[in-house]
């Protein structure tokens, strides 16, 4: 019998749209309403043929053999106990319950615990530590903001319903005219699909966002006359025009994305963006928000800050205290230096999304590797063990934090495929097995094959000469 489940939250991007309507029949997803093209695909993927229904172990010839959950859990628990510096990385696509359970395992194993923010908004965290975070909720943007700036972010592609739900088009309490009452400013080196919705598009020279922020700050501080004729590819007149729009706004909001965090300067680009917000607040109300990528990538920042005091790059190997130092304890840097001797990839795909020169030092270093993911991803194709789990928001519920750090209750619409475990159940079982193995006398004795010495990363200087 067909059943329509309403108010379902979507497990794709940080906008966490919670108005989906899913039609289910015989535990299969028939129809998805209100979701964007990517969200729709996630739900249909869950009911498609070819899902992995059981843990699998890689054979010497490269093929995979089904194993039981007990065998997969035993392998993972033993690996974590024996390794001296295992890395547990991912968590973009799981719920907070799973993250908390993984935190307990990581602490017991003396592992490094890191999430996808490490290669995404990690540098925003660094800037926020330094400068503060004058932010708000998405509801406030919808109901109050009449000047919206998208800087180095492309929601038309990365958060497809963000503009219609919060940023540009919705009619809110004080924004009854919707898009007609809002001024939209887009700053990007490419003329993106988001830029097509803008009243003012600033085509900044790639990698020169800091210069442009600096120019905006000069104007806000009253030094407009000292601006050069062109800054970061933008004519002075255009900068002054946009600054007038900002000053005339009743409520200005800046959304910033990977254009700042992935370019030269990293955290300093975000740092100066936050300082610009402070300057604008001398004239009118202004807030700022990071365009977080995954639906629950804000979650580990909340859960682990509560558990360990730090949001990401958490080194628990010392056993006595947690330690965070991006550049040293961040996943890509650990991989680059070949410092880890076991790897768990959960709810993400380091294989596809790490630079290959980093990933090959994990996948090709002869260290044991486990991938925990509902689907076959790139990391799974080189892992020793692949453990499928239930898809959050489709087959299991839980708490997820939206990009503005508002918790959203997710819900299951169908039963887990083939009775597979959730992330939380899996990590709890791994923890229990670790206790059993330790009781039986298994300890970290260095008997695993440790990482081989690495070929040097070519020095940057040499590469440019």
């Amino acid at each position: 019998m067909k059943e329509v489940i309403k108010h379902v939250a979507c497990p794709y991007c940080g906008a966490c749209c919670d108005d989906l309507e899913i039609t289910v029949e015989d535990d299969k997803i028939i129809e998805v309403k209100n979701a964007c093209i990517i969200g729709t695909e996630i739900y249909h993927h869950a009911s498609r043929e070819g899902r992995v229904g059981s843990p699998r172990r890689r054979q010497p010839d490269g093929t995979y053999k089904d194993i039981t959950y007990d065998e997969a859990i035993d392998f993972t628990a033993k690996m974590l106990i024996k390794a001296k510096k295992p890395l547990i990385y991912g968590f973009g696509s799981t719920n907070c319950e799973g993250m908390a359970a993984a935190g307990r395992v990581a602490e017991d194993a003396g592992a490094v615990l890191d999430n996808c923010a490490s290669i995404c908004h990690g540098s925003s965290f660094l800037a926020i530590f330094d400068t503060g975070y004058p932010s708000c909720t998405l509801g406030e943007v919808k109901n109050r903001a009449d000047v919206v700036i998208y800087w180095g972010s492309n929601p038309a592609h990365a958060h497809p319903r963000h503009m219609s739900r919060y940023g540009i088009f919705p009619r809110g309490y004080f924004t009854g005219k919707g898009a007609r009452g809002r001024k939209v400013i887009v700053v990007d080196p490419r003329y993106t699909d988001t830029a097509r919705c803008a009243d003012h598009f600033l085509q900044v020279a790639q990698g020169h966002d800091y210069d442009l922020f600096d120019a905006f700050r000069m104007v806000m501080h009253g030094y407009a006359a000292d601006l050069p004729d062109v800054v970061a590819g933008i004519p002075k007149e255009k900068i002054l025009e946009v600054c007038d729009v900002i000053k005339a706004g009743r409520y200005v909001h800046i959304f910033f994305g990977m254009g700042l965090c992935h370019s030269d300067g990293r955290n300093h680009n975000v740092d100066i963006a936050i300082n610009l917000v402070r300057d604008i607040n001398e004239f009118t109300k202004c807030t700022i928000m990071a365009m977080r990528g995954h639906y629950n990538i804000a979650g580990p920042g909340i859960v682990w800050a509560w558990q360990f005091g730090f949001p990401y790059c958490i080194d628990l190997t010392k056993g006595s205290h947690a330690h965070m130092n991006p550049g040293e304890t961040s996943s890509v840097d650990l991989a680059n230096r070949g410092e880890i001797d076991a790897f768990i990839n959960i709810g993400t795909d380091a294989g596809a999304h790490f630079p290959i020169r980093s990933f090959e030092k994990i996948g090709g270093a002869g260290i044991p590797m486990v991938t925990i993911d509902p689907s076959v991803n790139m990391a799974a194709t080189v892992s020793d063990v692949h453990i499928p789990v239930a898809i959050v928001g489709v087959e299991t519920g839980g708490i997820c934090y939206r990009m503005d750090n508002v918790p959203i209750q997710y819900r299951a619409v169908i039963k887990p495929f083939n009775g597979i475990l959730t992330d939380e159940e899996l990590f709890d079982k791994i923890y229990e097995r670790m206790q059993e193995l330790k009781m039986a006398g298994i300890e970290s004795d260095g008997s695993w094959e440790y990482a081989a010495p690495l070929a040097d990363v070519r020095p940057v200087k040499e590469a440019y000469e």
Partner: protein
Amino acid sequence: MTVLYLNMVTQRAVEEGEAMESGKTTQKYFDVCSLVEMNADDLKALGINQNTNVKVTSECGEVIVKAIIARQTCPPGLCHIRQGVWANQVVPPRTQSTGEPQYSGFPVSIEPAPEARIVPAVELIQKACNKWNGQLLWPM
């Protein structure tokens, strides 16, 4: 052979996001991610038409992808590979001590390679990790 030196960015595209959720071993993912998007003038300077394979080389690697005119316009001098397996063959792993690799804003050279083969995702990953056994276990 003409070689062009450009600035590269790698970011998300909705086509990539949808294909990724269908599965990274699928033909769909291969088709939408193994592309380099360029300005029409840059393609002209390379002396090639759209849909010609090119070799993209950075300080740390190279990859064969198909050149197209950018759907979201790139200015001359800037090119874009959608984030994912092919982009990350050339993304430098240096992080400026923040943990974040140089996904955007790194120099590449691009040259026509019309006869070269675009390698599927699984083969690229397994070869880099010395785990390639000569066959695609997940047919596209």
